[in-house]
């Protein structure tokens, strides 16, 4: 079934980028950019976001793989909803802030793995019978992010420790899930923004 993914969704892929993070404290420059981005979204813009090209591509993909984006919003819609509910983009830590910045700037979701536990290349494939992700069995056919060695997480779900990047992680593997209709430029931009924000470059 995983072999059929390419025919079913031409352009679906995972792109990745390695970076370093020696300081996990929030970066004031990133915090300012997040605060500026927070003022970009009102209630109307949060709704109209779904008509823009990249968010619309993720919504369509969600529908096509059996997720209702009105019940489980796409990452960008979830982030904007979170901003509206919390009243702003509150800084958390350098990794979370970098990932949120990349998402808000490009609408492309990026997840961070600890490069000590996960190695590239990363692929998207369907789960096989008996596979376990984060200690839990997954239904065969569920779409996963996986390395050559192991399944990493369910597609569009956050990775769990010890694979996810945490406060002890120094080398990170950033992974962007690109769906049909999203350009390679958007993917490059998302990964570069996240890496620069996390590594402080």
């Amino acid at each position, binding site marked *: *079934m995983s072999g059929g993914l390419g025919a079913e969704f*031409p352009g679906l892929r995972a792109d990745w980028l390695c970076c370093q993070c020696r300081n996990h404290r929030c970066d004031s420059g990133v915090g300012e950019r997040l605060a500026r981005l927070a003022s970009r979204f009102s209630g109307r813009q949060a709704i109209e976001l779904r008509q823009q090209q990249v968010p619309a591509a993720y919504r369509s993909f969600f529908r096509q793989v059996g*997720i209702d984006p009105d*019940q489980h919003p796409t990452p960008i819609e979830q982030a904007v909803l979170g901003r509206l509910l919390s009243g702003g983009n509150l800084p958390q830590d350098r990794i979370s802030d970098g990932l949120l910045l990349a998402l808000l700037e490009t609408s492309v979701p990026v997840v961070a793995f600890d490069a000590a536990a996960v190695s590239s290349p990363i692929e998207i494939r369907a789960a096989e019978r008996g596979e376990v992700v984060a200690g839990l069995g997954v239904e065969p056919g569920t779409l996963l992010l996986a390395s050559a060695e192991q399944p990493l997480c369910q597609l569009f779900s956050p990775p769990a420790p010890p694979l996810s990047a945490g406060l002890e992680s120094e080398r990170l593997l950033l992974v962007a899930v690109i769906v049909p209709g999203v350009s390679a430029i958007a993917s490059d931009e998302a990964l570069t923004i996240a*890496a620069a924000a996390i590594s402080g470059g």
Partner: protein
Amino acid sequence: MAALLIDHGVGSELPAQLGLGSGEAAARSTLRAQVAQLDRLLSAAACEAFPDRLDLPVLPARGPRLQSLGELELLRDALIGSLRQAREALATRELERTAARELLEQMLLDPAKYRRLRIAQSELGVGGCGVWSVMPRLGPMGRLMGWWRVKLSSGCPLAA
């Protein structure tokens, strides 16, 4: 702190080995395109409905996974139903707004006939919190004398 980028990979697009008959592959492709198109139309309806919220049925979700042909057909049919419901809701709302606008015109022409009637700006499809209401001019004196007028309240309360 300088960025140290040590690896950068672009995932190769997944291999095309669907192993299905060309007829089924074409049907799946058509259904996926229809689902995407219906989602765009639903998104447009949701934007048109703002600030109201469209109450659409929750679709059964069992993802993320490759959907079977039957599941794609069910999803397409459910989305068509949702879109029909959304358009009906928008049409009903437009009828209500038209009726409210006509009533406001009548109120403005003959306030005394519509004493104490109130129409909110939101009922007219206009932003803001203002309310059109028929009130007596000069309070109790106006009420006794039959001096009625239409007044628009000043709008949204200031934030505390």
